[in-house]
């Protein structure tokens, strides 16, 4: 049999259920790949083993998660020096639900310090590197999650997304990543960054695999006061709907004008694949990304800086330089500006749904409008162009968090340097099933998601 680490999560779970493969064989395959890849990409923080319910739908499937999902009695460093060795007293709801589904957690994964950075740099735990080319960023803040899934070290991973932290690394590493609707997945026991924006979501090799993970973790949680009461769907079954009859909004002229040529060509080709699969494309004006991103940043900065105020007063030198600078910025956000951004949020959501999505089920655009940059370009020695480059990397993800809607990032090509290109499907609140169905339809016609770095 070929290396079982190359099975999809859905195939691995099925193989365990049918008895075609033993869980220890999956574990062995993953461990062997971790040994090979870890020195190159630094995606794991710890290796451990927590077994789940052997009768669950994901029984025996090895996963690992961003080092910010608490497990009682275990360490969550949150990518930081300040919380190095922090032992959690309770287990996050997302991990509890994956345990109930039978998944095996085999480790914790590298991340940006306190999930506050879009590149995967980490001054305390070492930079996570892109498995397609280790000179390039893995994306952040769920850097280890995306890099580990891409290198086939695990079958899936949890990440968090406050301004793009699931989608950016998914895009840079060529995997599928789902930013869930705000409140769809419990944040209980997950390190907070910005309560108004934080979401928990899966990264995996395909939309189908994301659907299986979402099915395990989604739903109301009394332990998270911001958890949504909306009923969950059978996401695994929903992907069978495919793309026929879906209306897909797109801003073709804007993509051609705004995105780098290789990115634009790949995303427009992906839209054509959806159309060939039975979807209808509808031209729309692009949303006001810059205003929405500004509001997102105002909210994120104010909330993150309030969250970290005690440590910023008492031990600012224990933060990495980039994270300290981001936190400093939040103390210069006037309270009235912060509250006004929150008060405007409902109006912007309604405008998005009544204009961009007025006649469509989802909106398609690049996840990152520029090609994946290098670690050197975006690191501490990145030079004067670095802030502009980082702004370009995050420009197309933050607006989604401000609106609170779901978005699926999936690979749709490679650039001329061999780095992945990703598209983003953005839907109405709680329309995860629609996005996953469209993503699955696309991945049924293409093989970008099946390619793995060597």
């Amino acid at each position, binding site marked *: 049999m070929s290396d079982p680490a190359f099975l999809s999560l859905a195939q691995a779970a099925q193989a365990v259920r049918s008895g075609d493969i033993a869980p220890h064989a999956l574990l062995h395959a993953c461990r062997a790949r971790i040994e090979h890849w870890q020195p190159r990409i630094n995606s794991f923080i710890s290796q451990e083993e927590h077994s789940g319910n052997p009768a669950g739908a994901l029984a025996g499937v090895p996963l690992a998660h961003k080092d910010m999902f608490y497990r009682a009695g275990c360490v969550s460093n949150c990518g930081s020096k300040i919380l190095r060795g922090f032992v959690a007293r309770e287990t996050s709801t997302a991990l509890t639900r994956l345990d109930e589904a039978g998944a095996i957690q085999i480790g914790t994964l590298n991340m940006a310090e306190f999930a506050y950075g879009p590149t995967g740099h980490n001054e305390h735990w070492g930079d996570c590197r892109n498995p397609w080319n280790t000179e390039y960023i893995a994306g952040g803040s769920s850097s280890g999650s995306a890099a580990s899934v891409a290198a086939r070290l695990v079958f899936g991973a949890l990440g968090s997304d406050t301004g793009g932290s699931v989608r950016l690394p998914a895009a840079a590493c060529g995997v599928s990543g789902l930013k869930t*609707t*705000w*409140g769809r997945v419990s944040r209980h026991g997950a390190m907070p960054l910005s309560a*108004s924006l934080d979401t928990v979501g899966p990264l995996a090799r395909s939309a189908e695999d994301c659907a299986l993970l979402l099915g395990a973790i989604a739903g109301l949680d009394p332990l998270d006061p*911001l958890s*949504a009461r*909306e009923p969950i769907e059978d996401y695994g079954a929903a992907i069978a709907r495919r793309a026929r009859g879906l209306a897909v909004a797109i801003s073709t002229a804007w993509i051609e004008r705004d995105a780098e040529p290789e990115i634009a060509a790949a995303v427009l080709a992906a839209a054509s694949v959806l159309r060939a699969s039975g979807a209808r494309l509808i031209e729309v004006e692009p949303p*006001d990304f*810059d*205003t929405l*991103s*500004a*509001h997102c*940043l*105002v909210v994120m*900065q104010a909330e993150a800086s309030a969250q970290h*105020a005690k440590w*910023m*007063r008492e031990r*600012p030198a224990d933060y990495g*330089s980039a994270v*300290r*600078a981001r936190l*400093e*910025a939040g*103390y*210069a*956000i*006037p309270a009235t*500006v912060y*509250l*006004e*951004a*929150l*008060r*405007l*949020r*409902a*109006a*912007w*959501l*309604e*405008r998005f*749904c009544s204009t961009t999505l007025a006649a469509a*089920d989802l909106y398609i655009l690049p996840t990152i409008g520029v090609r994946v940059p290098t670690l050197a370009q975006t690191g501490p020695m990145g030079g004067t162009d670095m*802030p502009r480059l980082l702004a370009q990397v995050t420009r197309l993800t933050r607006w989604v968090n401000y609106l*609170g809607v779901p978005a699926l990032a999936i690979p749709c090509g490679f650039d001329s340097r061999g780095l992945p290109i990703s598209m983003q499907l953005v*839907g*109405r*609140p*709680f*329309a995860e099933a*629609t996005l996953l169905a469209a993503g699955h339809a696309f991945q049924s016609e293409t093989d970008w998601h099946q390619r793995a770095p060597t």
Partner: protein
Amino acid sequence: MVAKQWSSEAIVAALAAQGIELAPARGERLARAQQSLLDASAADPLRAALVLDAEPAGFAAALARCKAK
């Protein structure tokens, strides 16, 4: 009326009032960045139509209202 621009000194003072010590040589750059961010937020075309009873907690209801029928 034109809003007063953030300056390096104002940033340092605002942070100091909250007990936050700014890293060395950060004031000028932070003042520019925050001015740009606050200008972008203030340029919001929906701001003028914001009604008195719009409140942050209304967002959760908007999510439910805007989901697919």
